[in-house]
């Protein structure tokens, strides 16, 4: 698929929607947590890992996928979920622990499941590697189309699961794209402090996988690289480790002061850059770009309203859904 103006406007729309979602959640998150911070307080309790800065990854990669493809994401799932088309109202309701949430309030923000768009996430680092590979294996056995994409962070590339699964993806030429989102930080541990190689995409040669690296955090470049990886997977040529340099503008989780980040490592917000680029390229006028951003904010405001107006689950519902096939 060529990089059409329509596609690029779509990237902008997706990135704005994702940013609006996170900004709205951040605002909700701080309600009830000031002046004394406490994870469990307020309308949006628990840990919250926001995707601000990583929007180009979700927008670019998901645009290269079809509806039959499957995604696993990690503890920072919002940008991928939004780009994939996960139901925004029900996702917002899930973050607020409401009965109308995707999981009826049993998952929360790290555990987003929307089978309607083949999306799942997990809060355990690198857990989605094997799940994605298993989904790809299932489609091969079922003789149904569909590849799988595991979104992980650069820190997850040091987990055993990453290496075990990459080996099997290479061995069995499974149609899996491993998207390593390098935001430079695993909580406070820098990539250079934890990783023996500069680029995780270089590790691909150890597993007979393809490796690609994109250093721009620009959805155009990410899309083109993802499309190549997806094409290889669909053609039966096996998996790719696609490492994407990205950003983590809102810290590991809310409340992370990020004092460990030196001034010279301050990260750049990709949204204004992409907005300028589209205007420069004549894809959008400034007014059109801002109208799309405003529309995104309005859509998320409706999702927040939906969530806030939704009922809480009944306490007795805690006992349901431990096992399938039992009365809920």
């Amino acid at each position, binding site marked *: 698929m060529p990089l059409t103006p329509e596609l690029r406007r779509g990237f902008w729309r997706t990135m704005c929607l994702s940013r609006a979602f996170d900004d709205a959640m951040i605002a909700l998150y701080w309600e009830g947590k000031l002046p004394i911070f406490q994870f469990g307080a307020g309308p949006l309790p628990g840990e919250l890992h926001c995707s601000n800065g990583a929007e180009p990854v979700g927008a670019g990669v998901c645009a290269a996928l079809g509806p039959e493809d499957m995604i696993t994401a990690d503890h920072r799932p919002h940008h991928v979920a939004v780009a994939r088309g996960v139901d925004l109202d029900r996702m917002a309701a899930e973050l607020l622990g409401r009965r109308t949430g*995707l999981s009826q309030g049993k998952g929360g923000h790290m555990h987003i499941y929307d089978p309607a768009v083949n999306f799942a996430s997990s809060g355990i680092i690198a857990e989605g590697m094997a*799940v994605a*590979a298993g989904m790809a294996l299932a489609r091969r056995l079922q003789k149904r189309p569909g590849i799988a994409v595991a979104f992980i962070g650069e820190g997850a590339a040091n987990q055993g*699961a990453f290496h075990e699964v990459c080996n*099997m993806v290479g061995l069995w030429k499974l149609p899996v794209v491993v998207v390593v989102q390098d935001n430079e930080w695993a909580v406070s541990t820098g990539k250079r402090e934890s990783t023996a190689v500069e680029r995780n995409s270089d590790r691909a040669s150890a597993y007979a996988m393809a490796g690609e690296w994109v250093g721009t955090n620009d959805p155009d470049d990410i899309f083109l690289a993802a499309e190549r990886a997806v094409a290889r997977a669909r053609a039966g040529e096996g998996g790719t480790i696609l490492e994407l340099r990205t950003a983590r503008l809102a810290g590991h989780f809310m409340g992370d002061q990020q004092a460990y980040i030196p001034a010279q490592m301050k990260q750049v917000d990709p949204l204004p850059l992409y907005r300028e680029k589209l205007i420069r390229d004549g894809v959008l006028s400034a007014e059109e770009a801002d109208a799309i951003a405003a529309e995104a904010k309005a859509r998320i405001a409706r999702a927040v309203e939906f969530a806030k107006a939704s009922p809480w689950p009944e306490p007795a519902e805690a006992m*349901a*859904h431990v096992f399938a096939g039992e009365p809920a």
Partner: protein
Amino acid sequence: MSRILTMARAGREALDWEMERRPEIVCLGEDVFKMGGIFGTMDGFGAKYGPERVISTPISETGFIGMAAGAAMAGMHPVVDLAYIDFIGVCYNVLLNCASKTHYMSGGAVKVPMTLLIGTGGGYNNAAQHSQCLHATVAHIPGVKVVYPSNAYDAKGMLHTALRDDNFVIYLTHKGTAGVGWMGPPIPTTLAEVPEEPYTVPFGRVKVYREGTDVTVTGLGMSVHEALKAAAELEKEGISVEVVDLRSLVPLDREGIMESVAKTGRLVVTDEDYLSYGVSGEVIATVAERDPGVFKKPPVRVTMPDIPIPFSRPLEQAVLPLAGRIADAVRRLMS
């Protein structure tokens, strides 16, 4: 038609029957294609079903059991052979956080139907890393069913049930009960008349192997057979022992346990797993919570003590919950 079978052959029959009819069932594990799994549950399946459905994996338990969970989420029913339960340490996250919790965390939107076959137990001098039972360690995780047949009839029926369940089921077999060549001749009480036709044995019901009136002895896996040996000895001394096989840890038939102890008033709990924080305490708590007044004497536990399992024969034999220890415990309760 029925025949006398070992547990291993009976289990194989159930898996074969289901695989013939259900393309969503695939086998994964180390050496399963050429060797058919630790107990031969998949014996000959490589030739019969081919490498697509009988997948020998690298030694990467986190990877392939996690993949089984992913395949289950995408509509398959993987059957995974993990050989020894001692190896759960290298894939525990998949059990603890993924396969067991996905259905709940998705509010019922995502099912993970998969069956994990694991061998347990010692008694053959294989030391501390290849002799453990650890069934309490997996039964403690919410969201996983744990079953533990101890005879060929249950082995077949419970495997059919597991393969038709929409959940993550851990199907345990004590190595000594399976009736495989490398563990010596089969234990007679593990053998059973097994119908050729498929049938299911429901989870969550105890099996009373022999009825008795003086003492209830509960067991699971191998300890059932040690309890049966003890019961036969004690019968000669005029003590009537009821032997109850728990056979399903999750769900656990708490009423079935209570019913037996309410009748006998005396309880010996046998368990080859470690003493503390495990099934033996759970069984006693089950009775105590319902009515501690049924106990004529305080209950007794005969289990593996809280030690790494020793290698040397006299050391291991001294700590296993064997018939002699069980009989002594019963005699103490009757004195």
